[in-house]
């Protein structure tokens, strides 16, 4: 038990003293996850909006597929991306396997269904609420979309956060396509897995603490924005 406490305090010390190795892993994790979420938002927000606001054949099936994809096993996604990017795969010529780019691709595939599903749900409900008013005002479709997205911005930020949560905490897919290479593709989750297996609990715990702090910080930030806006209007 004493060893555990010692490891815990040493881990805190690593975090407080801003250990170089720790920082390198943390910044790489944040860079990859934020990039993946940014790209996923560019794809998922318009896709979710189209699913929410338009009717076309096969829409319902598409919604079911998206909902199923929300629960995609990361290792399967990792394997799929691995096969696509491996030298004998269709995109092998780009030489992306075991690079941060491959990890971003895997994370984008994992995040897009989550953001799309939440965006569709949020916008569809709001559209249902606003529809009569917007039609009464004869609002053109592009202004409808901007009004809905603007008024749903806080709910949509939840979608982005859910996506970020999925990306930053993911281990299986990024391990397969990134290879957990030191100074290149080692991120917090893969490093924790490696260090724990090696028995280096100090580094594993330190990274775990940072991972928790990042998740907590981002959620607190989103919560404070929502509360500030609410207070301003009351």
């Amino acid at each position, binding site marked *: 038990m004493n060893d555990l406490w010692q490891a815990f305090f040493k881990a805190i010390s690593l975090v407080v003293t801003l250990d170089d190795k720790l920082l390198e892993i943390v910044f790489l994790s944040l860079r990859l996850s934020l990039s993946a979420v940014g790209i996923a938002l560019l794809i998922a927000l318009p896709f979710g909006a189209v699913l929410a606001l338009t009717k076309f054949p096969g829409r319902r099936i598409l919604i079911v597929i998206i909902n199923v994809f929300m629960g995609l096993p990361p290792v399967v996604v990792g394997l799929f991306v691995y096969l696509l990017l491996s030298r004998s795969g269709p995109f092998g010529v780009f030489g992306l396997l075991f690079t941060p780019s491959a990890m971003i691709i895997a994370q984008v595939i994992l995040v897009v269904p989550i953001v799309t599903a939440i965006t569709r749900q949020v916008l569809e409900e709001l559209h249902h609420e606003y529809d009569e008013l917007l*039609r009464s005002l004869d609002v053109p479709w592009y202004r409808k979309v901007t009004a809905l997205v603007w008024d749903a911005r806080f709910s949509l930020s939840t979608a982005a956060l859910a996506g970020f949560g999925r990306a930053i905490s993911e281990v299986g897919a990024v391990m397969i396509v990134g290879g957990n290479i030191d100074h290149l593709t080692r991120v917090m989750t893969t490093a924790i897995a490696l260090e724990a297996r090696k028995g280096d609990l100090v580094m594993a715990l330190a990274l775990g603490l940072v991972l928790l702090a990042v998740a907590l910080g981002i959620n607190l930030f989103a919560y404070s924005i929502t509360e500030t806006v609410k207070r301003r209007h*009351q």
Partner: protein
Amino acid sequence: MIKYPSILPLKIESLNYEAGGKQLIKNISCEFNQGKRYLLLGPNGAGKTLLLRLCHGLLKPKSGKVMWSLDKDVKPKHHQAMVTQRPVMLRRSAYANIDYALSVRGVDKAQRPDMINAVIQRTGLTRVAHKLATVLSLGEQQRLAIARAWVLKPQVLFMDEPTASLDPPATHSIEELIHEISAEGTTVIMTCHDLGQAKRLATDVLFMFRGRIKEMSSADAFFTGPQNDLAQAFLDGQLIWWKRRPDKDDVQI
């Protein structure tokens, strides 16, 4: 006052509407003229709200026509507004709700603040202007819905039971607003279930029953002696258990 060419009279011709295999509006023809306050009366399910929505273009008729007095430079939809029974509020401040309606109609950004402040003052919403619209009381939301419609200076204002579920003071303030809007030349076409309110507001009454207009007359004529026996039964509060007189077989019920 109205600056654009009038989109009135509104002529309804052989209007039919069907939903779920049931014909809910049956061969309605009528005409609405400028500057009047039309009250659509009738029991629940008579088709009053449907008729408003068909006139405003929110529903498409199965057959028949809704004809505005068209001018090539005037888009009828842009000279009408509607206030619904349960007001739909954008998730923004009361001020921003009104601003949005003006921006959609292409009103210049510099002109909007004066117009918004004026309508907010006239509807008594100054105190809550910067509050989130969705947290306002139902009465305040209804006044905001009216303000949002009024600021557009509509030639025709459709109102679907605007005082349903409001207390007497809130109802009174809405009625005053309706009189003010009408005094500016806007034609008001509204539904209600309150005969007292209908007497206070209406210049003309349309009595509907099961998807048909049974009587259309001036408010005075309607309330002193309606021609239709169903309308008389409605005024007497006897429509539910009312039986047709044997000599009145002109209407299929």
